[in-house]
């Protein structure tokens, strides 16, 4: 087995931010552009130290608009690229995330969520950017967003985020929260040959025959590196397969539909949920990120008291697990949704439940729910 300094195979005691950076490196990320911000700073710190060791490039940019543009540029040249931020920086990245979606440039954006709006509550936890992750850039599009709940998943999901972004040519979001980012636990980094590392599909035609956005019936066109001699033509304007602006309703309908469908028609590949104690559950907690950890203990305690409680944990939040929620809503009497916000994902759950069951939000700000806070709601709803 050859030694690869980018992959620190073995057991480590890492916080979520550090684990996320190691996951990115293990998946082949070799470019990071960012602006440090609490509580995501340790990602930038780790990348600034580690990237030069593995022949990569780290740039601290002047702001988050530039950071986002820089990673789109690096990725266009064929390098796996990422940035990390929190609420205020995430807002600044929105326009260029849209550019990445329109130009179909793979990259990974990590948001370690803190309390907002504005500079808000820098050092405390939030899940208040979940809808911004879905709709924050203008226009119609589908998004991929993953929600880890542990340092191990910060590592694993960094790899998965890169793989999904390369496969579907789209910026992929890791929507973590401060508790997960700053929590330290054992992280197992597997041997190199056990790590799946996908890379964007390359053109199979000579450079002079390459057509930038020709899909040949698939939903994701092959991607040539800018600078390799292929005719790379791209724009944020609505464009045709050649990459030239095409200001017609037909071109717009065709392009936007494909950009949405490449995600929607592959939901089976993208959406991941974890089920616990669901087979006979009458009360189900649906959670993501750190509150899901409280929910595990809450349903355990509820079961001890004879209540048929279960947990559905959303590992992927966007695209939304619509079918999974509808199925659950038909089985359960009550769905309980603990979120560290004033109610965001609960709206999606209400939409997907289609009135089949009661849906209750447990809103909390700046702190994760205690298991007892969730247990109380489980117990009260059963009556």
């Amino acid at each position, binding site marked *: 087995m050859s030694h690869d300094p980018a992959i620190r195979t073995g057991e480590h*005691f890492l916080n979520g931010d550090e684990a996320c950076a190691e996951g990115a490196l293990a998946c082949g990320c070799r470019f990071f552009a960012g602006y440090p911000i609490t509580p995501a700073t340790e990602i930038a710190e780790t990348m600034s130290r580690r990237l030069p060791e593995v022949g990569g490039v780290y740039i601290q940019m002047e702001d988050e608009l530039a950071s986002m543009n820089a990673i789109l540029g690096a990725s266009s040249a064929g390098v796996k690229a990422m940035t990390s931020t929190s609420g205020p920086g995430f807002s600044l990245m929105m326009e260029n995330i849209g550019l990445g979606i329109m130009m179909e440039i793979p990259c990974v954006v990590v948001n370690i969520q803190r309390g907002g709006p504005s500079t808000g509550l820098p050092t405390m936890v939030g899940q208040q950017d979940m809808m911004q992750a879905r709709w924050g850039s203008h226009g119609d599009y589908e998004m991929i967003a993953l929600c880890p709940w542990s340092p191990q998943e910060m590592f694993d999901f960094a790899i998965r985020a890169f793989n999904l972004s390369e496969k579907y040519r789209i910026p992929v979001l890791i929507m973590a929260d401060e*508790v997960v980012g700053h*929590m330290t636990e*054992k992280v197992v980094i597997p041997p190199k040959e056990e790590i799946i590392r996908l890379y964007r599909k390359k053109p199979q035609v000579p450079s002079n025959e390459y057509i930038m956005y020709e899909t040949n019936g698939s939903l994701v066109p092959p991607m040539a590196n800018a600078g390799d001699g292929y005719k790379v033509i791209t724009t944020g304007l609505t464009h045709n397969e050649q990459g030239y602006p095409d200001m017609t309703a037909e071109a717009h309908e065709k392009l936007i539909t494909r950009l949405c469908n490449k995600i929607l028609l592959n939901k089976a590949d993208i959406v991941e949920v974890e089920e616990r104690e669901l087979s006979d559950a009458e009360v189900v907690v649906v959670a993501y990120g750190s509150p899901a950890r409280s929910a595990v203990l809450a349903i355990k305690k509820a079961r001890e008291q004879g209540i048929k409680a279960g947990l559905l944990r959303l590992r992927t939040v966007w695209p939304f697990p619509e079918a999974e929620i509808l199925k659950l809503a038909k089985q359960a009497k009550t769905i309980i949704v603990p979120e560290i916000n004033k109610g965001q994902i609960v709206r999606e759950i209400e939409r997907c439940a289609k009135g089949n069951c009661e849906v209750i939000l447990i809103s909390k700000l700046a702190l*994760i729910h*205690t*298991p007892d806070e969730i247990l109380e709601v489980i117990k009260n709803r059963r009556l």
Partner: protein
Amino acid sequence: MGQTEIKLGGFGGQGIILAGYIIGKAAALYDKKNATLTQSYGPESRGGACSAKLIVSDEEIDYPEVLYPNVLIVMSKEAYLKFSPALIENGSLLYDDDMVENNIEIDKSVRAYAIPATRMAEDLGKKIVANIIMLGFFAAIMAVVTKRSLEEAIKTSIPKGSEELNLMAFQKGFEYGRKLVKLQSDVKS
């Protein structure tokens, strides 16, 4: 012991978070248990009150916060006053008696163990190893993680070249703790 919930408190700069990190690392990597470390995080990490929360368990750890610790390790009076009310009955209190003050009223329902860790560190010529002395003291008194694992975790968590000093500090704290435990059991018998 199925699950131990530890809270560590002191000033920013005393190495409180590092001490929590080292116990967690010893448990997770060398004793093959589960460990989850969280920390109060903010401007206080540069000077004011600061704390780390650590859960060590044989089982999977879900809820990561420590609400009612069964072990409290404090290196400042402020941290003692702030965190000791949450310590459970019969919980263990390990404290730096010079920093917390000798004459403080310690709740009778807890098992208290005092060590002048900061003064001992100053005697070693390096005040910054007070946290490591405290870890040695912790190893002598509590059976949460093994001494050997703590030593391994120290070696892999400190700057290269400072191993000898840190392991010496650890040993000093350990010996002090051993003597104290013996003294207390002699008194009881």
